[in-house]
């Protein structure tokens, strides 16, 4: 049981840290991605017309 306790504690730590880290990165870089998406969609619309 002790081994399982340690295993789940480490897993939880990895899960929590990954979640927080990826959130910060995505919050910062995602905004640039969104602006790029708008530019590309406008470009596609221009080509369609």
């Amino acid at each position, binding site marked *: 049981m002790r081994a399982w*306790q340690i295993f789940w504690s480490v897993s939880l730590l990895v899960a929590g840290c990954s979640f*927080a880290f990826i959130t910060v990165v*995505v919050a910062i870089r995602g905004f640039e*991605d969104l602006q790029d998406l708008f530019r*590309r969609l406008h470009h*596609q*619309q221009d080509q*369609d017309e």
Partner: protein
Amino acid sequence: MGFTYLDWSIVAIYLAASVAVGLLGKRFIGKNVSHYLVAGRELGLYIGIATLAATEIGTITFMYNAELGYRYGFSAFSAALISGLAMIIVGRTGFVIRRFREMQLMTVPEYFERKYSLGLRLLTGILVALGGILNMGVFLRIEGEFLTIVSGIPGRYLVLTMTVILLLEVLYTVVGGMVSVVITDFLQYVLLSVATILVSIYAVHYAGWNHIVDKVSSTMNVAGFNPLVNPKFGLTFVIWQLLLWFSLHTCWQTTAMRMFSTRSPEISRKVMTWTGFIYLGRGMLPMLWGIAALTLFGAGPMDRGVPSPVVNGRTLKSLDAMPAMLSQILHPGIKGIVVAGMLAATMSVNSSYLLGWSSIISQDVVLPMRRLLQKQPLSSRAQIVVNRVANLFVSLFLMFWGLYYTPPGAVYLYLNVTGTIFLAGAFVCVAGGLYWRRANTVGGYSAMLMGAAGAIVPFFFLHWNETIAGFAAFGLAAVGLVVGSVLGRPQNAPLMSVKGTTT
């Protein structure tokens, strides 16, 4: 601690911002159905991660995972670990998703016409829509329960509250399609992640890590830590979950739509890999909240091996333990942020699911039927109109089914089984179709029908447990594909684009 004016203000600002931002999407839709359904296939890595994570993390996710944690302790973490690892493996290997993205699909059943036949696409479309809408059917009630418990809204306003939220989601989804969904997903992902982290800190702070471990140990003994000896889990559960999560990450329409929407197959793989790490937290963190709720409030009469939660003298269901805990421990202001975060989670999931299932109805049920009846193909603009009507139809169904149907047993397992109705057959057909030359239409029909029967008959009619129903569905689907393909005539259908459905 009640819901203060500060909390209400935070929630109102979030709702207004979300709908306003969502309506922006209309500017980028034009007349092109691929803009409406797959955002012009222009998603980059970070926005791809945000929209995929937001789509698959809802209040419903927090509720069922917390319930699993409350009932089964740390053993429940095994389900979260399997879901995350399966996603990372799919992302790293590109299993199914790379080929799907290269084929420029818009829906999963579209593949069935490329590989098998138009009729099988129609059958798959019907099964996918049926399973998906039934699956989503329980969302509203459970999300409503969360909101009423945490915010203190009287129960008699539950229907009204959920109707208003659903209407707001429908508004921007119908108007702006995938582009609106992606824009709002970004905002919602950031907010729901902040709420997740805040709640995790509060839960551990109030319950105390040592108390949490001691409570699980004293209540469940070794079964609370070792999933292999827990009667609800065990080796069969682990294998079923592996099959289920590989199929969910590859063939679940709302997940697959994100892969179809990325700029390239390489980006789709990276999105899947990084979101896999988020999936670990998506499962384990709310499970931890459930265990914290057990530690703080698990003092009532025993119910299936665990004490029922008692909050302010009232005995509650295990599903309601986590929101009841949040209503007690969060401070004013923080509670507003958390409820706004949960609303964000709710809206991102529901809007994506509405678009996902309505796209199946329009692209894989209505369009194939028209072709079978030899009617003229619909223009791109007409396809968007059909999708919008389907979206409204799905919303109406959800209003009635969601608010009046109560799922039996743990919600997580109900969702797994309803998903398995089509996932078992779809996954077997897709994997077999892509990686086994001999797979043919007879095998495809057999797999879809036997997979659906394998999930529906044992669970709904024979009342067997979910693990057996899941096993039966995947096993029968695999047998159906192999036997049907061996008995049927070999075919070499070229995987070319389908006229009028792909851009």
